[in-house]
């Protein structure tokens, strides 16, 4: 594995994390959070943790996002920060 690839993905991960907590629309947060999880999954796959990456892809990027959207559907999208 080449460390530049790793570094680029890590930068993306941090970018997604900051964006997810800064953006002012919770639905956007949900999607950015899904992207974050998927980037994370990519990172772990690159590091050879295939089982963990598989789990994160199905849980973090999949089911968690669905729970998230469901909860937003039942609460509200608006947020002040």
């Amino acid at each position, binding site marked *: 594995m080449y460390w530049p690839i790793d570094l680029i993905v890590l930068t993306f991960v941090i970018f997604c994390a900051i964006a997810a907590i800064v953006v002012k629309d919770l639905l956007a947060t949900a999607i950015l959070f899904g992207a974050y999880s998927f980037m994370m999954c990519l990172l772990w796959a690159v590091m050879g943790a*295939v*089982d963990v*990456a*598989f*789990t994160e892809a*199905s*849980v973090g990027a*999949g*089911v968690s996002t*669905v*729970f998230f*959207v*469901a*909860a937003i*559907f*039942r609460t509200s999208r608006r947020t002040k920060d």
Partner: protein
Amino acid sequence: MKFLGFIVVGLAGAILLYGTGDFPDWGDPYSPASLHISKDYIEKALDQTKVPNIVTAVLADYRGFDTMFETAVIFTAGLACFLLLRDFREKKERFYRHTPTGVILHVKAGKKILDGGKEFEYMDKDWVPSDLIIKTVCRILIPFIQIYALYVVAHGDFSPGGGFQGGVIFGSSLILLAISYNLKTLVKRISEKMLGVYAALGVLIYLGIGVICMLMGGQFLDYAKLAPLIPFDSNHIRALGMLGIEIGVGIAVTAVMAIIYINIVSEGRHDEGL
């Protein structure tokens, strides 16, 4: 609050960075973490368990006791969502759609549930006309997703995957059904009672295998002691034991994912959702 946040975060970050000072280099194959027990796992797992995926071997056998409690955590989450959100009260207002004409009836509180035969269709409050393409595509997709989930469960010994991942995929196929059709369709297919029973059953399979090992005179979860019960293929007895518990985990996770989704999306009333 923001100021406090910065202080706490800065402090925690400083402590953690200080701790990294004595870490071995990243990716160093001679770090203590790679030398002590992980060496034994890698070199002995195939001989001892006959499972080529070392992660599964460690997860389900060497540290199988952890995984049992992990399944119990999942069961707890399902139970907690049920306890927190489930609302058995009847909903007051209902909407029905007359299929031939498209007229929508709004039934207010106190009225009997409309029983107008097949022409009237119960519908959600935020109903939108269902899309033929989405319905058809999902209908075709769901069986394949489920087959894939079963493959992931069954093939966890040889490739990435296992009970948990397979269970999540199976659970998401159920959630897909609920999203593409509506929540009622899912609840009609698998009742709440069945989901509750499956969730407990999955963990019980895991625990049961452990207890049977104990009754056969071994330690808890010692699959080797199952050999007299399974006369064929006693060479792979540990792999078979792992398959058994993976199936249990898969069942429990499937049921719990569906329970959490249904309860959150319908606020515990199990009538309408996304």
